[in-house]
């Protein structure tokens, strides 16, 4: 197996915890992390960590700053693969990553048990693999289901 540059992205809180439960799947690759709370750096045991500004899909100026910060990191890292559980920083990471030719994997939060998140619906266009954690939400045309972090 060829070692790849893997960028793992999640907002702080539930998205971050879910992403961290996937660490065994990242083994053997060079890891880079992006989240939204600087203190999470102390939780990263393997790889580089950068915090970007937190903003929701409803805070346009905040989103713009976050998007630029994420774009800059993606340009510097040039990841082969991006894995994200959302929300907004993950969306921007797979958007810029896909434009630069990375494989992008969106795993919608397990919190969204009845419908995909807004960021999750928007992610469809930019995700190589577009996944939900609920079999009830899976469709033939996507999102697909491969299991959940629970």
């Amino acid at each position, binding site marked *: *197996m060829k070692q*790849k540059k*893997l960028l793992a992205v999640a907002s*702080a*809180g*539930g*998205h*971050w*915890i*879910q992403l*961290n*439960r*996937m*660490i*065994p*799947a*990242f*083994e053997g*690759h060079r890891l880079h992390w992006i989240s939204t*709370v600087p*203190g*999470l750096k*102390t*939780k990263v045991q393997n790889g580089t960590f950068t915090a970007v500004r*937190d903003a*929701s*899909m*409803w805070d346009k100026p905040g989103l713009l700053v976050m998007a630029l910060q994420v774009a800059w990191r993606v340009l510097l890292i040039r990841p082969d*693969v991006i*894995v994200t559980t959302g929300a907004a920083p993950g969306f921007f990471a797979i958007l810029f990553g896909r434009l630069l030719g990375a*494989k992008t*994997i969106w*795993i919608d*939060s*397990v*919190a*969204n*048990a*009845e*419908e995909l*998140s*807004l960021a999750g619906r928007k992610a469809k266009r930019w995700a190589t*693999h577009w996944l939900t954690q609920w079999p009830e939400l899976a469709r033939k045309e996507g999102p697909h289901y*491969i*299991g*959940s*972090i*629970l």
Partner: protein
Amino acid sequence: MIFVTVGTQLAFDRMVSAVDTWAGSSGNDVFAQVGPTDTKFNHIQQSEFLEPKDFDHYFNSANIVIAHAGMGSILTAMSYGKRIIIMPRKADLGEHRNDHQLATARSFVGHAGVSVAWDEDELIALLHRIDSETTEQDFVKISNTAPEPFIQKLRELING
């Protein structure tokens, strides 16, 4: 000690006020992470935000955790084997941007170690009931990683 958390983004005064009311009548020791709010609660200690290591400390020391229905709080409770009461935020009360916490809460009904309070009255009722039971009853901790079949499939997507 009872630990209350509303997550990293938004205040949730409706839930914290209910706990405050209950703490006033029961005399329980409560520490609450309350998010960005100007409300000063009367019967509990409060902090707007906690650094990850302090958050872990309070979580670990708590007999029971009361939280908004956010996955971060629920997963952390499960990984510590802590009993947790969740109360969903409602979008029509301006507590979140949509009602995904109602969906999350519905998906955890009947789950061992997780109790759902649908509103503040139910929360207070649940707390009074728990007050008269033993609160030291911990649950089986979930592992820190996702189930192996999921990891295996994700690994294939990453490596393929």
